[in-house]
């Protein structure tokens, strides 16, 4: 019985090039990629927080670093990853509560996530970095 269930052949299509991912699917994979990047960058962010809080000298070092245009662009990207993960996460919480599970609203809400996360990135990036 158990063997039958485990060995049951299921259709598989792992040819990524032939799959046209719909918007909620793109949102989903960006949610995963952004989460992975935020995890990988944790030590850098913790180091920045520590340096910015421990002394006036180290605060100045971080301030200089953030003043660098290349670092600004990276941080801007990081704010986007955070905002996307944040907005997409709220969408998933609503889906968990069975809000917006039909196809049409799921597509609409993923559009909203993209628009709002880009808008928030621009506003917050402008406020914090410039």
């Amino acid at each position, binding site marked *: 019985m158990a063997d039958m*269930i485990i060995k049951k052949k299921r259709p598989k299509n792992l040819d990524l090039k032939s799959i046209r991912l719909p918007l909620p699917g793109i949102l989903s994979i960006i949610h995963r990629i952004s989460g992975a990047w935020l995890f990988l960058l944790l030590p850098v962010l913790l180091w920045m927080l520590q340096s910015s809080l421990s002394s006036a000298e180290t605060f*100045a070092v971080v301030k200089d670093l953030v003043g660098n245009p290349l670092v600004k662009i990276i941080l801007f990207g990081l704010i986007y990853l955070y905002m996307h993960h944040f907005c997409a996460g709220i969408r998933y919480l609503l889906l968990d509560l069975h809000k917006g599970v039909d196809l049409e609203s799921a597509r609409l809400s993923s559009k909203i996530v993209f628009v709002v996360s880009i808008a928030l990135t621009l506003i917050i990036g402008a406020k914090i970095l410039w």
Partner: protein
Amino acid sequence: MVNRIVIGAHYGLKDWILQRATAIIMALYTVIFLAVIITVGPDSFVAWRGVFANGFMKFMTFLFFVSLFYHAWVGVRDILMDYIKPDGLRLLMMIATAALLVGYTGWSVQILWRM
């Protein structure tokens, strides 16, 4: 003899709930943090340090970090389960992830209470 089918039945329900609970805590903190940054606008060392010297913000920031590390554990574990096929390597990477996150928890205590 009992034949158990190794599927279903609440495997990972605790992590599923905690992933969402920690997400809510982090989302609330994000709003609080941004509100503080926008209203106070701490651009000097003294002002920036003042934000985290406040007892409420210190507590909330620590709660945010603990939530973040647990949330990251569930997320990274899911990613490793999906993509890392060799059992030994996956186990090793899970242990490394857990060790890192426990280390970060200690580090965040140090950052907040020894500033």
